[in-house]
């Protein structure tokens, strides 16, 4: 397998799908001429032209709903929201329109739209440019929510999202953009299933359920703990709505201990749903409290980011607590 950067894998996925299906197009701020604020669409404007790589005015609500309208009329838009924080401007479009258009019109139409947005810290960009808001979307019926962790995954999942006939919220992570890793060869056309978790590391002692950047932090934690003889099973959910109960539950059946880790604020984050589901459906399997890892309950700040975003050491200490406090 070749090596590729996460951001480049995104570009490749879009490019290949645009080549395959002329109804696929990209729309957003600075996606065209400039190739995207983070460079995700570099080269696509030259290749596909302004009709298919559409620069918009700064108007997240407007262009998201415009894309939605186009999706109802046979096109397959990919919308780029520059920072996930700005999706607050487009919530009406996503929640009241896109998520409901198929259901409320009695399944008359599909709404094949992918809304890409990078979340998280890493740029010291402060409270309005660092949020992780995936839990909001996972709470909205009608949407799928995908959070890929590696170059390989992001390409396969983005291709799947573009081909999916449901609206997909596709969440990247800013610190992952530059990450290098194994990637599929172009001709392979790898398409990964939405809704399926991927076991990134097998282990027998504690299950860590995570996604996106925290997959890597959890893998680091697994390395650290392996030195102490503790074997983590790291499950990358990949999709948090719908999430892969089967894989998570069967891992817990093996380890009997669970940690859920994400970059978002811990309280009311997606970890709460995983933990609550386990406490509802699998409580007897647990040998220890379910520990959650997430950012502290405060906004990100300009100069304290490094203390704010959770990392491997937080996963390590959560794991240790599940081992100490068993009953």
């Amino acid at each position: 397998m070749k090596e590729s950067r996460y951001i480049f894998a995104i570009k490749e996925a879009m490019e290949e799908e645009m080549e395959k299906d002329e109804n696929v197009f990209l729309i957003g701020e600075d996606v065209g001429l400039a190739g995207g604020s983070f460079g995700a669409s570099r080269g696509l404007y030259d290749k596909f032209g302004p009709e298919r790589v559409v620069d918009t005015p700064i108007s997240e609500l407007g262009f998201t709903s415009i894309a939605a309208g186009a999706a109802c009329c046979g096109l397959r838009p990919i919308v780029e929201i520059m920072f996930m924080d700005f999706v607050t401007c487009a919530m009406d479009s996503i929640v009241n329109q896109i998520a409901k258009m198929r259901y409320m019109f009695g399944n008359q139409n599909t709404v094949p739209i992918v809304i890409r947005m990078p979340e998280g810290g890493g740029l010291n960009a402060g409270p309005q440019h660092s949020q992780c808001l995936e839990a909001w979307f996972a709470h909205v019926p009608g949407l799928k929510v995908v959070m890929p962790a590696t170059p390989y995954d992001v390409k396969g999942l983005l291709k799947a999202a573009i081909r999916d006939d449901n609206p997909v919220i596709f969440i990247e992570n800013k610190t992952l953009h530059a990450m290098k890793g194994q990637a599929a060869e172009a001709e392979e056309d790898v398409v990964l299933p939405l809704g399926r978790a991927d076991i990134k590391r097998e282990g027998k002692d504690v299950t860590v359920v995570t996604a996106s950047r925290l997959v890597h932090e959890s893998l680091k934690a697994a390395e650290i703990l392996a030195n102490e003889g503790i074997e983590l099973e790291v499950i990358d959910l990949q999709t948090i709505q719908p999430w892969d109960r089967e894989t998570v539950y069967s891992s817990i059946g093996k380890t009997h201990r669970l940690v859920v880790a994400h970059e978002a604020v811990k309280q009311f984050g997606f970890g709460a749903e995983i933990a609550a589901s386990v406490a509802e459906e699998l409580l007897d399997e647990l040998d220890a409290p379910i520990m959650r890892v997430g950012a502290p309950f405060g906004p990100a700040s300009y100069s304290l980011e490094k203390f704010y975003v959770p990392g491997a050491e937080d996963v390590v200490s959560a794991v240790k607590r599940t081992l100490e406090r068993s009953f």
Partner: protein
Amino acid sequence: MLMKKPNKKQLVEFYKMMVRIRKVEQKLMDVFSAGEILGFLHVSIGQEAAPVGVCAHLKDADYISTTHRGHGWAVAKGIDLNPAMAELFGKKEGFCLGRAGSMHLADTAIGIMGANGIVGGGIPIATGAAFAARYKKTDQVAIATFGEGATSEGAFHEALNFAAIKKLPIVYVCENNAWAEFSPRSIHLPIESVTARALAYNIEAVSVSNNVLEIFDAAGEAIQKARNGGGPTLLEVKSERWYGHYVGDAQQYRGKESVAEAMGKDCILDFEKELIKDKILKKQDIENVQSLVDAEVEDAVSFARECSYPQESEMLDGLYV
């Protein structure tokens, strides 16, 4: 660009369509008051001219997005009354499986993209339809309909700005009925006419009265311009809201005179008089139209009554593809 005048057959069809809208909604008010339909019901009685004048230029393949007050547009765009009525009754045989009711009525097969319960919500969606038409190089156009209240929403602004920059094939039809819920126009508009909003985007705007022929002419030009690549137009229709915001709203916030004044302006009666004066219709023709439409509406209601409600077990069917 000079528009063809409507011929006699068309004029009669306009009249019939306006009567159809009126009678559908009058019937809806009855069945709503009788408790046969639930939720919110917003009627457009007094505003029938706009949908008829505009939709006369549209093909099935053209798109419209409508609002909470959208029955008239669906009817004028050619919706089949039986499944439409079934939808309004919340029945499973309705266009939307009874999930939509009045506020979200849609028939996408003939370009009725769906009524919207979010004020302004449909404006960028129709703009997206126009984008799709241009993308696919068809000659389709899109119509976004909305009230004057909706022009204060950011969605209006963002959509028109985009359409202007991209010169999309769309006509924005604002039915300025002087009220948004319980608030008069002055709460919403710092301008005399909604057409002033168009200046912000350098798009053409025209304001017409609640006269179906005036609307037909203005819409015809705008739609033809859109089809020919000339970009968007904002069309304001100054119309009247006879009844409350929704059925059940007694309009206590609104002076009796204001209601009487609105009801004194009847776009259907005015048109009827014109047609009689011009000898296009006779008294008898009018009676025929009325009874024909009455029968259609009765049929639709009977159909709807015989349909069945969706089952609990069907509640989530098709939520995901």
